[in-house]
């Protein structure tokens, strides 16, 4: 068990390092010297060289990389070339907002998918079960931002019961915080929920064919009792895999949904950074997103071990 976790942790650290190199290299090969950008077209070569020295971009790439990557561990992402403010702080402010958005979206997806998928599997032969499958197929075809716009149209424009956008911090007003996030959560969660429903359905269907469910029934459990006690935990193993992949998708989806609902999260920060050519900020945000995805994968591996004793190795 401990060996397994150590291995997974090592994989996490190693992939983080590789990701760091990749993210840094991508930014380095992009055309556009930050010093030139900052000074504009009329700058003298001397001034540009001076600013480069100030930024530290005149040093060899490797030195710049280790400086930047080493800083990440302590939460130091460097200082923006454009706004001169520390990047770590900006990211930190936004990270919580995005985490809440993604977490809530996932929760919505789970609340839809687990009951609906299980129901569709148990009733896979009758019309209602088939209808759920068909409905989830439709859900898969809708992108999150479109779902968001549709939800805004119905609940904010037509019914006027929820705000169409904006974000109120939890500490300021919990009710408004919740009302503001409800539509973003739904637009992320509904679509992912539809996708997840299909996976839950097929996982539960697979488990229903397992011999040990028959054993459970031979012990005296009913169909549903056997499924509840012995089936769902077994079905959750493949679902956790998909959940990990979906969290990554949600993180990317959040970038767009934050735009639609004017939420000051990481996605919003990233898009603004791109628009403002704030390369170091872009680099920082992308790195945080990558780290988040890697962390999710690590947690998925930990969840496997918690769920399935066969992965824990020796007793």
């Amino acid at each position, binding site marked *: 068990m401990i060996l397994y976790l150590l291995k997974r942790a090592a994989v996490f650290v190693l992939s983080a390092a590789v990701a760091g190199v990749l993210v840094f290299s991508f930014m380095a090969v992009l055309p556009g010297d930050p010093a030139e950008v900052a000074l504009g077209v009329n700058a003298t070569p001397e001034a540009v060289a001076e600013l480069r020295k100030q930024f530290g971009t005149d040093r060899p790439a490797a030195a710049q990389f280790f400086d930047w990557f080493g800083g990440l561990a302590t939460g130091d992402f460097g200082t923006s070339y454009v706004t001169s403010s520390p990047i770590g702080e900006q990211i930190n402010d936004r990270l919580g907002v995005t985490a809440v958005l993604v977490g809530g979206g996932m929760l919505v997806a789970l609340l839809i998918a687990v009951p609906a998928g299980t129901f569709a599997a148990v009733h896979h032969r009758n019309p209602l079960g088939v209808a759920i499958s068909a409905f989830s197929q439709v859900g898969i075809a809708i992108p999150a931002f479109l779902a968001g716009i549709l939800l805004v149209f119905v609940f904010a424009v037509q019914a006027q019961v929820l705000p169409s956008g904006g974000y109120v911090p939890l500490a300021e007003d919990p009710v408004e915080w919740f009302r503001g996030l409800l539509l973003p959560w739904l637009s992320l969660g509904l679509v992912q929920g539809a996708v997840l429903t299909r996976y839950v359905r097929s996982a539960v269907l697979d488990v229903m064919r397992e011999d*040990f469910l028959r054993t459970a029934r031979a012990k*005296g459990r009913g169909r549903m009792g056997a499924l509840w006690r012995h089936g769902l*935990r077994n079905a959750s193993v493949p679902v956790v895999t998909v959940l990990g992949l979906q969290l990554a998708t949600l993180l990317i989806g959040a970038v767009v949904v934050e735009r639609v609902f004017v939420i000051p999260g990481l996605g919003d920060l990233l898009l603004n950074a791109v628009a403002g050519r704030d390369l170091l900020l872009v680099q920082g945000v992308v790195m945080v997103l990558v780290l988040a995805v890697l962390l999710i994968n690590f947690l998925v591996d930990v969840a496997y071990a918690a769920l399935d*004793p066969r992965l824990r190795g020796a007793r």
Partner: protein
Amino acid sequence: MLSVEGLTVRAHAAELVHDVSFRIGPGERVGLIGESGSGKSLTALSLMGLLPEGVTAAGRARLRDRDLVGVPESRLKDLRGRAMSMVFQEPMTALNPLMRVGAQVAEVMTLHGKPRERARARAVELLGRVRLPSPEQVARAYPHQLSGGQRQRVMLAIALANEPELLICDEPTTALDVTVQKQMLDLIAEVAPALLFITHDLAVVASVCERVLVMYGGRVVESGPIREVFTRPRHRYTEGLLAASKLTPRGTRLPTIKGSVPPAGRFPGGCVFRNRCPHADVTCEKVPALTGEGHAHACWHPADRG
């Protein structure tokens, strides 16, 4: 104690088991033999109320005074694991991989009303009774840490936990190594209450059972005491089955039953065996009845009593 009358199992239009009748007395050990596809497992599953979706049973089956066929699931599930239990063919997949063995044995007792603590203690006791070494340790193990033979013993412990009146074993040793098979059979013979033992292995049935039912094409074609059926088979199918299982002198051809078992629902009308039987003629187009006291057979041209 168990009486089955006119048991018929259907999947949609196809009739998979036809009009099967037999009895098992208290403490009696009865074998049910036949090739795969003969309907042995479906017969057993219909007694347990565990037929797959879309497959239905009709007829009458009673365990003492309780009906088993055509009664609601809520009543059947109360009997399963308590009054009757079943051990399946595949020990590798029959246990929940995510649950400790002891908990899986205890479950069948808590389900039928035993307090949790007592069920746990008794689970360890049962694991010892099926001769698993260091039962406390086995109780804490997960199924993947046990061998096939050990897992099948665990299944047997589960089946015996509530001291059922009837034990059904569906090819319990087929998936095991030969050396482990023998130990398992001895154990079953020792601990079983009334037993319905399903197998395609004639030697196995001879070593465990007192009486045997031979099934072919979803029908019982011959039944009687093991010794009589095996030494003086009457039905031509049983005769062929026995000939095919005998050791033959070196250099001679292995005797076989010609042809193969038709797919479900494709058996000929009349005697189900007539398309493979060397003695078949026009009379075999009519269904032969299972006749005879004690040693019964359903054949128009039975082998002579030797």
